[in-house]
């Protein structure tokens, strides 16, 4: 098993109810699988805010994995102590 940290930004926080969480995962898991785990955990609203009907990341959502911005869900392997950020992009001023 391995541990990763997930950081959520608004408006995703309104669905997850938290800003930061640590979760335990099986080793070797891929990013797309992790997203599915989170969709199963947080439900339709989470999926709806994140993905289009074609299961692509919406333009007003930002996903960052270990400092790298992710434009498409892919088979990138998640490592122990990875940091994943999932956030809307509207904010500031």
């Amino acid at each position: 098993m391995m541990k990763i940290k997930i950081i959520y930004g608004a408006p995703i926080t309104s669905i997850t109810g938290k800003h930061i969480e640590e979760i335990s995962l099986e080793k070797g898991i891929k990013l797309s699988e992790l997203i599915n785990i989170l969709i199963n955990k947080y439900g339709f609203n989470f999926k709806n805010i994140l993905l289009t009907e074609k299961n692509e990341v919406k333009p007003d959502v930002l996903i960052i994995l270990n400092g790298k911005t992710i434009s498409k869900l892919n088979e990138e392997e998640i490592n122990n102590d990875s940091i994943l950020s999932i956030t809307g992009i509207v904010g500031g001023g």
Partner: protein
Amino acid sequence: MNKKIFGYAGQILRIDLSKKKILKEPLREDFIKKYIGCTGYAAAILWYELKPKIDPLSPENKIIFSTGPLTGTLCPCSGSYEICFKSPLTNVFGESRSGGIFGPKMKYAGFDHIIIEGKSDKPVYIWINNGEVEIKDAQHLYGKTVHETTEIILEEIKDPQASIACIGPAGEKMVRFAAVMNDRDRAAGRCGGGAVMGSKNLKAIAVNGEKDIEIANPEKFYEFVTEAEKALLKKTALRRFGTINAITVLNAMGALPTKYGYTGFFEKAEDVSTERLSNKYLIKRRACFACPIGCGRYSEVKHGVWATPPHEGPEFETADMLGPWMCISNLEAIIKANYLCNNYGLDTISTGNVIAFAIECYEKGWIKEDLIKGIKLEWDNPETMIKLISLIAKREGIGDLLAEGVMRAAEKIGHGAPELALHTKGLEMPAHDPRGETKIMAIKYAVEYRGGCHVHSGFPGLYDRSPESLNDYGLKQFGLPWPPKGKFIEEGKGIAYRFFAIFGQIPEIMGMCQFSSMGSEGNMITVKDYANIYSSLTGIEINEYELMKIAERVYNLKRCFNVREGFTRKDDKLPKRMYEPIATGPAKGEHVKNLDLMLNEFYEAMGWDIKTGIPTIEKLKELELEDIARELK
């Protein structure tokens, strides 16, 4: 200007406080044509009427309260007014916007601009009621907070519907980043306009009136503003969560300015989140005049040591600068600090910046114990923050040093303080870190005419925030590079920023809030929308290309103001910390690498001399600013 005028009030009020002289002047048709209004018109007045190199706190300075043609109309987000002056903080062009209802009421009182000149021999306030102007004694108001001043004046003038713009104790003491506050909690915060008012012994301006704003083509105007409102109603995130939602958004990006920019990630960001505010302290949303977005928050802390009455805020900038910027996660203390800054009349961005700066200077051993007199200058100490806000406002103890702003305080502290201080041109850096957010903010901070600013001229931060961004701000038709390169790629950012810099002037000259002008077609007011709205309102026909040209003219005029004050490429720089890597979080390691590249791109794109950053004579002639070119030569 004798012919019938649409959209504008048609008059300027000029008050010489030295001579107690009140003059009403017609709007100049040539200025309307060249600069449209609000900060564009005011910049032209300041160019032609201010001598270069004056002391901004001397009677020679002027402060201009300005509205635009859209202010006070049915156009959504049209509640803005701006103040323009030579800044006592930066010595360059100072401008500061505020919402609320003061701008519309100023127009209904009969004036597009109010020019304040000279200095009164004793404290006064001005009451403008349906075109009638009185200068009234304000000696009994000196020392009063913003809220107290507002209540007393409303009682005295016997008009509870009037709008009051005033200074608090900070402005009276000429704290260099004192704000002008209106409608109690709305702030024209940046650049020290409150200090300029204080230097003139002007405590407040009260306005009210019933003058109509006439519309040239009402049917077309109504059609265009209705479409604009539909677009802005799509800004659901701002409405629902307020600007403070950026705390968790930017933290998730690793770009939440924390511990004086040491890092962009704050472990306790959730404690300062919009959800925490909504669950425990929010009373309701608040909106400015004619605003369908309603990003304002109205909050209170009911009990305990941080208790406050209901008041507006905190906004994102305030929440970060009085929070994670100093490693503070106590939201109640942040709300209290916001309330105090509003009431003392202090810019929350500059206040937070300078307090955190003092903490780091003390940590490094650069501030002596006898200066702080027992105050615990340390991170995550809300009591210290509250204490220092009071000391700054009253210019007492170390507060007197910090009231000078971070640039001057750093010079006096010495050691490595000048290198550490986070400002550009003396304006304290706000809560957007170019290193973690987007490098377009790096070129913006370096070149902006009012100094280190995230939102004048416009806020380009949404452009490349996500890889599949749709946020072209409607600027592709003008040549904005599209799609954007990655937010951390510096090449091309100077070219891209030119478009945002120019477009950002349009809300500034129209009298509009910048939140109406971010995003993409369908959820914002585009250049073409502005051209249509303006043409139907005023009967002065312009298309989107002509409007961009006017905006470019105004941006260059403001740049020329600064050039005349001696500011050139050497002053378009970033603080040293921007070249240091972010220490932790999702943007760990990011830093600015090559500002010169971005500067060269921007200057070339703008038609400015690359070596000096000065607009070329050819560019100024193209923009019909030949007389300015001759003076700068």
